[in-house]
């Protein structure tokens, strides 16, 4: 279980403090899937950094029960351009000094599963955006995480690739029984993949609403009337924030 209690965070710009997260509290049950959505620049990435342990909150606490293994996919910059696809995928294991044969087995299997066969010796710069995202996904999964953090893993992809990868993530959540936290700015994505949807206000981010979405994480849900109603509801909730930002 992940429990965030009144976490706040600010950044310093030339001696000025900018509040980015303002008194955020929520819980995510083990093996649940949570989507975090909010207007652009509101602090979604910062919140994910807190959860993934990259940043510490200025005040408040973060507690993750049982010290689980975590996999993280960062926005845009996840892969190391000087490492091949196979080296990137295996990096988490390499850093743990796991023996090479075992790493190769895990990597080969993930390359197969992520449909990257034949690209193991390519460099990330030689791949399409969709393939790079699958490499990032494979790298996060290589450590057999119990929690998977994803920061807009599918933005900057075309609609078809995006849908395909959404289904891939759906598969992963269903098959591996892991806790997932997905940051996104896409309402449909949040409704499709988040059983719990946390809506953030514009900066400094506060929790606007936590929406329960129990039917999510199933491929039938996407075509149901219920799904469209949920999307409309989320859109209404977010609209105030985006309009307010433009004013």
């Amino acid at each position, binding site marked *: 279980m992940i429990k965030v209690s009144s976490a706040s965070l600010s950044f310093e710009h030339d001696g000025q403090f900018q509040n980015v997260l303002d008194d955020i509290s929520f819980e995510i049950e083990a093996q649940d899937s949570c989507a975090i959505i909010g207007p652009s620049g509101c602090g979604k990435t910062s919140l994910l950094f807190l959860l993934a342990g990259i940043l510490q909150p200025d005040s408040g606490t973060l507690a993750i029960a049982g010290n689980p293994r975590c996999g993280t996919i960062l926005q845009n910059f996840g892969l*190391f351009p000087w490492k091949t696809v196979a080296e990137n995928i295996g990096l988490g294991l390499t*850093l743990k000094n796991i023996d090479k044969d075992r790493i190769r087995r895990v990597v080969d299997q993930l390359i197969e599963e992520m449909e990257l066969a034949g690209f193991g010796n390519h460099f990330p710069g030689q791949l399409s955006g969709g393939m790079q995202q699958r490499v990032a996904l494979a790298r996060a999964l290589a450590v057999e995480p119990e929690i998977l953090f994803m920061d807009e893993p599918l933005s900057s992809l075309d609609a078809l690739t995006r849908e395909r990868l959404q289904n891939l993530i759906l598969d992963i959540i269903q098959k591996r029984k892991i806790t997932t936290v997905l940051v996104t700015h896409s309402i449909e994505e949040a409704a499709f993949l988040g059983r719990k949807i946390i809506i953030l206000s514009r900066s400094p981010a506060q929790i606007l609403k936590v929406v329960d979405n129990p039917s999510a994480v199933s491929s039938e849900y996407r075509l149901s009337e219920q799904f469209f109603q949920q999307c409309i509801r989320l859109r209404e909730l977010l609209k105030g924030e985006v309009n307010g930002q433009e004013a």
Partner: protein
Amino acid sequence: MGRKRDIFWAALILLALWQVCALLLDSMALPQPWLVMVDLATKLTNGSLIDDLAVSSLRALAGIGLALAAAVPLGLLVGTEEQIGKRVSPFIYLLYPIPHVVLLPLIIILFGIGNFSKIFLIALIVFFQILVTTRDGARAIHRNYFHSMKTLGATKLQIYRHLVLPATLPKILTAMRISVGTSVAILFFVESFATTTGLGYIIMDSWGRADYVSLYTGISSMALLGFMLYMLLDRIEQHVCRWMSGR
């Protein structure tokens, strides 16, 4: 290979220009290139120049190697660790612009007039070029790469090995290319005293004897030496920066 042909043509054009200048000037101080080339070929084949070429190469390589061994680790550290960088950078800025050749008397007092003083002076001058470029390279690494490393559980040493060093390597190689030019120039200076070997000595000695053909043979050998070092660097770059190709 197209590259070899390009080099051949460049050499031919330079020789042609030299020929034209020699004919126009019609002076002892600029002998015709074919005279020099014949002299060079003779001395290379009968072995009388090989020793000097070898001695000079070793001095240059040892100097660059020594500088590299000190400047790269320090540059990576100063560029990565913000606190250390803040404290060390002022020293670099104060010491870099000094014309280090003026330290020669001091170096001779410390290390004598043998080979080591010559190597040390080359190393000292090249050290700063590599240090500053390496530091700037390390400093330019986007912080998201560090975050990525952190999520994979990397230790400090692993961050240097898998992120900082490979990301900075292209910059280090550029610095080494600049160093080759610098070190050959300093070679001439340090071989003009207290030695009877090396290309610098050949040049000074021929000058003293007004043997201009030998003088230009010495100069051509230095060009050859620099050229060989550049080729070596290109080889290394092709090997270690494979990921950069096709960018």
